[in-house]
């Protein structure tokens, strides 16, 4: 009779443990889906950046654009608000340094993610 008046410590501990394990599992699953989504976005951003670097290399030293942004049809598959940056700076007299960046913010996250690639493009000896 005495023991049925309330919960014993061991019962409370066990139920808290079980609820805790379930919450941890639930959190792990939701965390995993964030990872999957960000991995996909990273892949898209890398494709966008590589494509731009390749087109700049093809264009060659003489036709390098000014710093700014660039467009790519794949940008619409990144979360809304994703931006591109293109930085063109002199490395030395006959070499230009080009940095291409893609920045986006995952849905439900406040921190932004960036993929950036850099290359040097020289006045002579580029792609034929």
């Amino acid at each position: 009779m005495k023991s049925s008046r309330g919960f014993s410590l061991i019962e409370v501990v066990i139920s808290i443990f079980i609820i805790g394990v379930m919450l941890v599992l639930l959190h792990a699953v939701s965390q995993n889906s964030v990872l999957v989504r960000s991995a996909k976005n990273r892949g898209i951003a890398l494709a966008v950046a590589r494509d731009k670097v390749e087109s700049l290399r093809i264009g060659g030293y003489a036709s390098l654009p000014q710093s700014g942004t660039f467009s790519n049809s794949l940008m619409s598959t990144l979360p809304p608000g994703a931006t591109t940056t293109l930085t063109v700076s002199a490395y030395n007299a006959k070499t230009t340094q080009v940095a291409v960046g893609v920045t986006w913010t995952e849905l439900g996250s406040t921190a932004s993610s960036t993929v950036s690639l850099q290359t040097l493009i020289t006045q002579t000896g580029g792609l034929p």
Partner: protein
Amino acid sequence: MMCCLRRYQRGFTLLETVIVIVLSVSMFITVGLLIYNFSRISLYQKTATQSSGSASTVMREMESLTLPADAVLQTHTFVGGTYTSSSTVLVLEIPSVDSSGNTIASTHDYAVFYSVGTTSSYRLLEANALSTRVSGTKLLSSTMKAFTFTFNDADFTKVNIVTVDVQTQAQVKQDTVSDHRSEQMRLRNQ
């Protein structure tokens, strides 16, 4: 006291039985829903990972053979058959490389990227005996929706830029997982 204790321990009251049944049923439903949702989410994630992973794999494989290539061939006869370049087939001629990474004069490896049916894409590589590349057919993706090539010249002998467009698509119950990649590649040895 003795009589009451004995009567209390004789069995469960109807109310107790009802509460226990209701509690256990709702617990089973909760646990069942949890397990169902876990497996549904993990299946979705597995498919999404495979879909975006295979799109990236195709791109890396394309780069590893297209960048060192010296020409896009109009047509080439492999052991398994003849392939002709088009918007869905890409036949490449690649200078062979030896174990120290140097090209071997006037020997070539041949590679073709093609699709079978509507969803499977393959890479077939036929390497020269002296080359360190490994011959064989490789399944690139079995969830392909579109695998197309665009060339910068209608004449294959003048082509030096290939634009590759990859779209993968997989179905998870009612949900569709799709991925789209596109990159241009300049043949470095043309």
